């Protein structure tokens, strides 16, 4: 197994996440795209750890940190989405123009 095959797969997943982030209009789907990008980062971390084989498994520890922060982000993100939906009756980012110049 080459290292670069994992890196290219992660790059493709990250690119899908970028595309979804820019194209999607629903806030929940934008959060899903962010999860895809974080997942690509995790693949990179684990692949590099598998090559370097650090004695303290640093890559694994950082992947766990990324997963934890992603979980926290989803919790807060969905609470904000809920709040916006309650106030604006919509989960569409095109309707949120309060902070546009």
């Amino acid at each position, binding site marked *: *197994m*080459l*290292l*670069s*095959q*994992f*890196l*290219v*797969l992660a*790059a*493709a*997943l990250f*690119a*899908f*996440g*970028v*595309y*979804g982030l*820019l*194209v*999607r*209009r*629903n806030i*929940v*789907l934008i*959060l*899903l*795209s962010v*999860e*895809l990008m974080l*997942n690509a980062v*995790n*693949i990179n971390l*684990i692949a590099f*750890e*598998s*090559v370097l*084989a650090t*004695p*303290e*498994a640093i890559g*694994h*520890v950082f*992947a766990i*940190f990324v*997963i*934890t*922060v*992603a*979980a*926290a982000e*989803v*919790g*807060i993100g*969905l*609470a*904000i989405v*809920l*709040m916006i939906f309650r106030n604006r009756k919509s*989960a569409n980012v095109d309707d949120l123009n309060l902070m546009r110049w």
Partner: protein
Amino acid sequence: MTFIDWVSAPVNWVFAILGAVVLFSGFRVVTSRNIIHAALYLVGALAGTAALFLMLSAEFVAWVLVLVYIGAVIVLFLFGIMITRAPTGLDEGLSSDQRVLPALLASGVFVMMSWASIDAFGTQLVGSVGEPVPTEIIGDSLFGRFVIPFEVVSFVLLAALIGGITLARRDLSPAEEEERSAV
């Protein structure tokens, strides 16, 4: 390493299958016109990633991914979809009409990143599939060298918990407030 060498290793077939699953699911997450399907395709992408982690001898992280993402985060997402009463059938309005520029940008990101990785690590081999990294090492590392980041992350989780409750709580109107304090 030639292409023939690459194909003749069975472990690469497994990688190819898993990679195809991950890429297809990831593609459908960002293109599906049904919001529930998008969330469920993310399960496919995450499960494929967990299997890749198992291939890379990261057993603990793979099961953490399954538990936290597939077990908790996806459920949270489905709750979010249900609560915001998003149209659960086919919906053309989920994606913006301007897709060319984002697609160009995303392909640019992909080409740049993969070119950089192939240029830097072209023939670097990953350790073959074998013994999983013992969880003991990860635990020692978390509570040894990385104990401060660990505490910081736990604080982040606590803040997210409190913040989530505070944000999602429905504020009472003054009349309801009075009614409640009277009881």
